């Protein structure tokens, strides 16, 4: 079941009605049942993997909690610090004996579905190909998302950042919560538990705000992302030698916007649906194209994924015994530059995993390495960079400097997006070559631009939608919630805007036909 479908709207309305009509103590049961129904309907099979992850997560977290409690009791018997350290080491070893198989099992499950597609013909041979293996067990929807969410929860319990949940239903709901199960955001248990346990009373204003955010997300998806997708698919689908470099550049720039509109559109829709149930999801985007550096870009883009990798991979590596040993050895070497070795290695590790999490192609791996190298390089170069800036008397507040920094970030993201949008590394290579050898800027002003699926009318419409999106982004960048901003306008202006967006969505959204509106780009991750 996709968020943009009649079936989902009916499902949402029924769940919403039951949620507020039923006694408040039953609300989380209704959400759990709805999540199971949503997941099973989307899967068209039995959600075996989801249940396996939920059960192992539940069990592992309970074991960790118990072990931590026993460790505290044993440590309390020790008189000195050394004794407490020894007790800690013993219990840590015991916990690792459970934690490591848990991680291996769940990451293995994710890797199996995500990367072991080549083995499917063998499995089909065993299970019979009608129906094949995947049809029998069901391709786990959102496995990349709920697996990392579950692992994060277990690490948090192990780090005592939260207590293990004793009610299995809450764990299942946390992992399978239907607005976020397929494409995130990555929720943290501490924040979600409190909200699931609260009794929620109906609020007309909240319902309206949720619907507004849902419609805004649908606008970004249907009017902007899917329209851009027509052009990008045609350009990237053409024989590279027949397309001038400027058109590839234009298509890549459009792809940057498509990916953003598509993914942030989904997140807006999911957050809007969740808001109607009075459950707030964490923000996943903060206008990333206003970022002045790549590091800032990734603090604004897919925020919860970045935070996940930082907290659970980067810090786990850096604070591990190995990370500490390397740091101690290198820290004071090479004129103080050695202190960058471990953070840079951690960054490369994080970006390598971020790359393979997104996809199994060489393009994604190179994409991860590209960002890792840029981030590590900027970390090492920072002292020189600050020095140059001060010598050139460049002020942080200068608008021209801000624009330069933003443009520099766009170029880095642009290059990375060529790698992931191309069907192969050789196509990416041909496209980079086209930028240099046959840019032919004139083709952007000729009729050639309109020969890739979008007419002049469609391009003008897209431009208008992008202007609306930019205006909303500028309001948000100034620290205002656009829904609060609109609420402060005169009623006539407000309703003209609301109806205008809905009308644009209904009349100009890309529905059906040869373009599948149901598929969100990030769903494939």
């Amino acid at each position: 079941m996709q968020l943009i479908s009649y079936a989902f709207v009916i499902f949402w309305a029924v769940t919403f009605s039951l949620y507020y009509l039923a006694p408040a103590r039953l609300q989380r049961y209704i959400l759990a049942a709805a999540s199971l129904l949503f997941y099973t309907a989307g899967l068209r099979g039995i959600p075996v993997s989801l249940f396996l992850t939920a059960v192992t997560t539940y069990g592992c977290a309970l074991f960790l909690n118990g072990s931590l409690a026993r460790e505290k009791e044993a440590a309390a018997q020790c008189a000195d610090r050394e004794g407490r350290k020894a007790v800690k080491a013993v219990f840590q070893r015991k916990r690792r004996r459970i934690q490591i198989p848990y991680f291996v099992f769940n990451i293995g499950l994710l890797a199996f579905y995500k990367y072991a597609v080549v083995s499917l013909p063998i499995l089909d041979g065993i299970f019979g190909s009608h129906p094949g293996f995947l049809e029998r067990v069901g391709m786990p929807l959102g496995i990349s998302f709920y697996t990392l969410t579950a692992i994060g929860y277990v690490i948090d319990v192990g780090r005592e950042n939260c207590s293990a949940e004793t009610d299995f239903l809450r764990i299942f709901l946390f992992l399978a919560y239907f607005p976020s199960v397929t494409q995130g955001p990555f929720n943290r248990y501490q924040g979600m538990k409190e909200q699931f346990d609260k009794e929620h009373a109906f609020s007309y204003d909240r319902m309206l705000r949720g619907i507004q955010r849902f419609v805004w997300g649908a606008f970004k998806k249907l009017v902007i992302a899917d329209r851009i997708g027509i052009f990008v698919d045609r350009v990237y689908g053409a024989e590279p030698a027949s397309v001038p470099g400027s058109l590839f550049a234009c298509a890549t720039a459009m792809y940057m916007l498509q990916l953003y509109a598509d993914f942030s559109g989904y997140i807006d829709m999911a957050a809007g649906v969740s808001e109607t149930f009075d459950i707030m999801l964490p923000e996943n985007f903060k206008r990333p194209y206003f970022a002045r550096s790549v590091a800032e870009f990734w603090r604004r883009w897919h925020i919860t994924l970045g935070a996940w990798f930082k907290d659970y991979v980067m810090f786990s590596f850096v604070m591990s015994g190995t990370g500490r040993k390397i740091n101690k050895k290198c820290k004071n070497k090479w004129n103080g530059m050695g202190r960058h070795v471990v953070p840079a290695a951690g960054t490369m590790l994080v970006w390598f995993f971020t790359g393979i999490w997104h996809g199994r192609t060489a393009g994604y791996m190179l994409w991860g390495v590209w960002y890792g190298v840029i981030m590590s390089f900027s970390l090492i170069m920072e002292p020189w960079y600050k020095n140059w800036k001060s010598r050139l008397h460049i002020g942080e507040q200068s608008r021209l400097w801000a624009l330069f920094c933003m443009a520099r970030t766009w170029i880095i993201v642009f290059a990375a997006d060529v790698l992931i949008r191309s069907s192969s590394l050789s196509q990416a290579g041909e496209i980079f070559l086209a930028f240099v050898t046959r840019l032919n800027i004139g083709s952007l002003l000729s009729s050639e631009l309109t020969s890739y699926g979008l007419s002049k009318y469609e391009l003008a419409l897209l431009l208008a939608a992008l202007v609306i999106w930019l205006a909303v982004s500028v309001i948000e960048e100034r620290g205002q919630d656009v829904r609060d901003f609109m609420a402060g306008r005169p009623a006539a202006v407000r309703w003209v805007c609301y109806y205008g967006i809905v009308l644009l969505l209904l009349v100009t959204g890309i529905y059906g036909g040869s373009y599948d509106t149901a598929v969100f780009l990030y769903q494939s991750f």
Partner: protein
Amino acid sequence: MEEKILAILEEHCEEALQYTGDNMMEDGVIDSFTVINLVSDLEDEFDIEIDAKYVVAENFKNKEAIIALVRRLVEE
């Protein structure tokens, strides 16, 4: 102790000393690289071990939170 912590903090991130908000990491004042180097220097200076479980936004939200964290670990 407080002076020593502030001196280490100043060495890694001067801005952190002037910061008056309550989420230095999210506000981009202090990034993960700075946190890693800061943790390493604090560990050496005070002979403590700052586990990954302590490296959360809450403990690095401002200079006062960092001082409180070090103080807690020294006393443990």
